[in-house]
């Protein structure tokens, strides 16, 4: 099953779990499944229009999902890992 990686500051929502396995075939589906297991994730990750919130990054394995052609519609499979990474300042 695809797996979510939850960063430290957000683990209160996942009851302390570092990873959460979800049943899904695409990224949006995975978010919905994560939200079903731990309610609250969907509203925090997605805005009213269903777009990823600006200050959250989602990586499908090593790719930023915003840079993947199909975006949130990107397919996910058995061994895929989706990481939530809060936006970082620079330079």
């Amino acid at each position, binding site marked *: 099953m695809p797996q979510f990686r939850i960063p430290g500051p957000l683990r*209160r929502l996942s009851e302390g779990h570092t990873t959460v396995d979800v049943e899904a075939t695409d990224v949006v589906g995975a978010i919905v499944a994560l939200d079903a297991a731990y309610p609250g994730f969907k509203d925090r990750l997605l805005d009213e229009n269903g777009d990823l919130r600006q200050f959250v990054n989602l990586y499908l394995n090593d790719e930023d999902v*915003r840079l993947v052609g199909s975006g949130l519609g990107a397919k996910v499979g058995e061994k895929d890992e989706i990481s939530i*990474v809060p936006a*970082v300042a620079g330079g």
Partner: protein
Amino acid sequence: MPKVIGLRCRECGAEYELQATHVCEMCFGPLDAVYDQALLKKVVSRQRIEQGPKSMWRYRDLLPIEDSVNVVTLGEGFTPLVKADRLGAELGLRNLYVKNDTMNPTNSFKDRVVSVAISWARAHGFETIACASTGNLANAVAAYAARAGLECFVFIPVDLEPAKVASISVFDPNIVAVRGNYDEVNRLCSQLLESTPWAFCNINIRPFYAEGSKTLTFETAEQLGWKLPDEIIIPIGSGCQFVRHRQAVRELLEFGLVRGDRVPAFTGAQALGCAPVYNAFVSDTPDRVLPVKPNTIAKSIAIGNPSDGVYVNRIARETGGVVEAVTEEEIVDGIRLLARTEGIFTETAGGVTIGVLAKLARAGRWNGDETVVAYVTGHGLKTADVLASANGHSSRRVEIEPTMKSFREKVTI
């Protein structure tokens, strides 16, 4: 009495105890340091500032470091605000200023943020300082960690300019060169956060780090005789400093350091080769900054996934500023223009700032009497290679024999 009382989420307003964290548990938004406003109202004054050291620490009351803390300093800040008459004449601006932040201890504005970050980290018991960096931050972190006697890990993209790598290495930090771009380095560090007890300047202690940027704007106001300019041009990487400069203006007005309520126009500068904020600004949806893969000589600001991009666009619009972008050629032209007219040698990020300044001026943005300040944030020796590769030797260079004859033949005076 402590002046910093906690952290607050910029999005939902949730409050947190003072700690090394940067993300809101409630909404995943960014956290900012919160001050005891009533206390600050009592202590902050022009007089106290003017009596302070000739460094950015003269604004200590407005920085998140308590009075009891021994700060880690190399004399950063209070850099020259240069009245740029010759550059102004070329651009039709009679009141143009350059804030020359190349004059910092490690030659970029990052010394301001790092001095605050490392002071905070050491005071809160951290033994190792780390950062993800496009070069300048790593340079500052390595130097200040050496000064503080702390362990240091810097993470940089593997293709960083050789001059930058040399000026980091000399301080003997642990350097991790990552085969990837800055956004990938950042992502790795975000993940490392959990398995290390380190203070990552731009990640978990970012709420304190970011505050240091404000001093650039405090100084600008003080150096203008406690006045605000009409417009400020700021280079944008993550957009972090841009947002803090807006906050600095708010504080200058709030604490009566500057009179009135007029806010300068905030204008952002990007390289077209990495312009996610500019792309959004000129689109129909400035609130949606889409990441890009950077490809520009302006590596210090080559951040494809800028954390504060949306806030930059909001501030630019609200204050009557714009976000503009320039080509690689315009960046090099900007470096040369500033050097030729004002004797200031800036790196590519400053080339972006001056390039944008020139582009806007030539497009008729100003009538000529406005007070415009350009923030030049890093020194030219950091990226000197872009000049060499642009056209080899200077067109005004001649090579001669060590004889009078040869001189007379080859040189016209």
